[in-house]
């Protein structure tokens, strides 16, 4: 689909995408075919609306067109299978005045389906972008830097998995809902991170996965305003994304937090993120996303790197570590510990982590060790650790950053 190049118009279509799809699935109970029908309705809208104007009820229009496509599809399927189901299909007439509550449920249920644990994370991200985000296959392929035909196959297989695993399009029980919401948050979190790792310096707004993850998490937050985890994830994304322009130099080189030009940080995003995480924590909702957001907020609120409230960050990492025994959290806590207690204390924690084994050989352990050795003034070992870390990372900007760190110390 090639949406019209009119941004407000495009915005409207993207906003309507999950509502229209939800309504069509609710009626026809076939996720895969409904998804195709809705894409076709959007192509029709993109062709007709600029010429004839936007209909009075654009949502109803899209549901009606998609439903007609579904009816055609089911008829031809029925004919092919020589069954008589076409008669039943005729009786289905689209109800274009579904209530707002049903719409919201539909969008949430769609997210549950697209982020189902039976899908691999890359499939779930792609399916979510198309079915809920309203992006075209070409745009998603571009974001992942794979051919469009490859992405089309990935989405098609994901839809088949959803279909064959018999995931119901209905509101699940409260306990199920909590679990499924957690899966959705995880996928949105991965989508946000993917936005950093796939763009090789060429930031394209339209298919920017991080911005899309923020948009979808914002939508989820509107649907589940009482969830502290959702508010926490949205805050974490906003507080991290606020630093985006300061994070890389003109040639895509990484600039670490303590050397970033803080005047470039997006104060609007920071204010919104801080308000969200403060709200969630003050309601007593303490989860991993809220805590990570709180840590990001402490960084973002420091006017200069040397003003950073490291004791508070250390305390927050302590809480985070108690919630989940994750060696990456321990690694980050070691940095905070070094900033409060001195590099020798941090290095001791790293030795313990090395013995623990789960991070053994991971380049992040070497990168952090290099940093702490440098702080301790042990340049020869810091150089060796920077070089070891550079050999282990799969990120090109990070590799360049690490070899430059080693070179800088060699020339001291």
């Amino acid at each position, binding site marked *: 689909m090639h949406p019209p190049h009119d941004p407000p118009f495009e915005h409207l279509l993207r906003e309507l995408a999950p509502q229209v799809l939800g309504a069509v699935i609710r009626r026809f109970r076939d996720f895969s075919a409904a998804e195709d029908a809705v894409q076709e309705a959007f192509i029709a809208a993109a062709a007709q609306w600029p010429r004839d104007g936007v209909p009075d009820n654009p949502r109803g229009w899209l549901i009606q067109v998609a439903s007609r496509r579904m009816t055609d599809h089911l008829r031809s399927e029925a004919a092919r299978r020589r069954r008589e189901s076409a008669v039943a299909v005729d009786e289905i007439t689209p109800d274009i005045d579904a209530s707002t509550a049903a719409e919201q449920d539909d969008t949430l249920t769609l997210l549950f389906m697209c982020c189902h644990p039976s899908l691999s994370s890359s499939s779930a991200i792609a399916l979510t972008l198309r079915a809920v985000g309203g992006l075209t296959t070409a745009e998603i392929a571009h974001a*992942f830097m794979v051919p469009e*035909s*490859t992405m089309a*196959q990935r*989405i098609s*297989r994901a839809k088949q998995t959803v279909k064959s695993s018999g995931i119901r399009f209905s509101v699940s029980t409260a306990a199920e809902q909590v679990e499924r919401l957690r899966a959705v948050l995880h996928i949105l979190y991965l989508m946000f991170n993917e936005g950093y*790792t796939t763009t090789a310096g060429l930031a394209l707004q339209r298919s920017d996965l991080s911005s899309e993850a923020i948009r979808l998490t914002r939508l989820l937050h509107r649907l589940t305003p009482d969830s502290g985890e959702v508010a926490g994830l949205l805050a974490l994304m906003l507080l991290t994304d606020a630093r985006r322009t300061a994070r890389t130099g003109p040639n895509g080189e990484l600039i670490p937090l303590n050397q970033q030009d803080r005047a470039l940080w997006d104060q609007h995003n920071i204010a919104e993120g801080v308000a969200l995480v403060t709200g969630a924590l003050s309601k007593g909702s303490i989860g991993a996303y809220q805590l990570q957001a709180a*840590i990001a907020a402490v960084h973002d609120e420091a006017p200069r790197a040397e003003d950073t409230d490291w004791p508070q960050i250390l305390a927050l990492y302590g809480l985070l570590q108690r919630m989940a025994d994750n060696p990456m959290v321990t690694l980050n806590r070691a940095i905070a510990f070094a900033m409060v207690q001195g590099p020798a204390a941090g290095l001791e924690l790293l030795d313990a982590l090395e013995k623990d084994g789960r991070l053994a050989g991971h380049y992040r352990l070497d990168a952090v060790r290099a940093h702490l050795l440098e702080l301790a003034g042990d340049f020869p070992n810091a150089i060796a650790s920077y070089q070891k870390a550079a050999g282990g990372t799969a*990120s090109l900007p*990070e590799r360049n950053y690490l070899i430059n760190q080693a070179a800088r110390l060699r020339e001291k």
Partner: protein
Amino acid sequence: MKYILMMTGADSKCEPIHTWPQKDIKAHIQFMMTLNRELSGSGELVSAEGLAGPDQARLVRAGKDGAPITDGVFPEAKEFLAGYWIVDVDSPERAYRIAAKASAAPGPNGVPMNMGIEVRQIMSGPPPEFL
């Protein structure tokens, strides 16, 4: 995560493909086409290319004026890149499985060649921000 799977010619013990019986050449090509179709169908194929033979290879350097200086043919080269796949997969293990499958492409008399496939991760953009 993306990986490049590099197939190096002249590493396997068997004779070069142009000396094989026709039915074996056909079976080999068929196998490669099927593999590519499978990778495309699973939504993992980024690209797959075969390279022209090493007899056509030239080693190029810039001369003093920046103009290309080409150097001869290297028939004595023991290893050369014959072709490659770039795949986008969920794990390194999956990339290894694909490589193993390609490695077992049929050679003369349909016997699996078990050629060496070098698997290398393709570098990505900046990592997620570590706080």
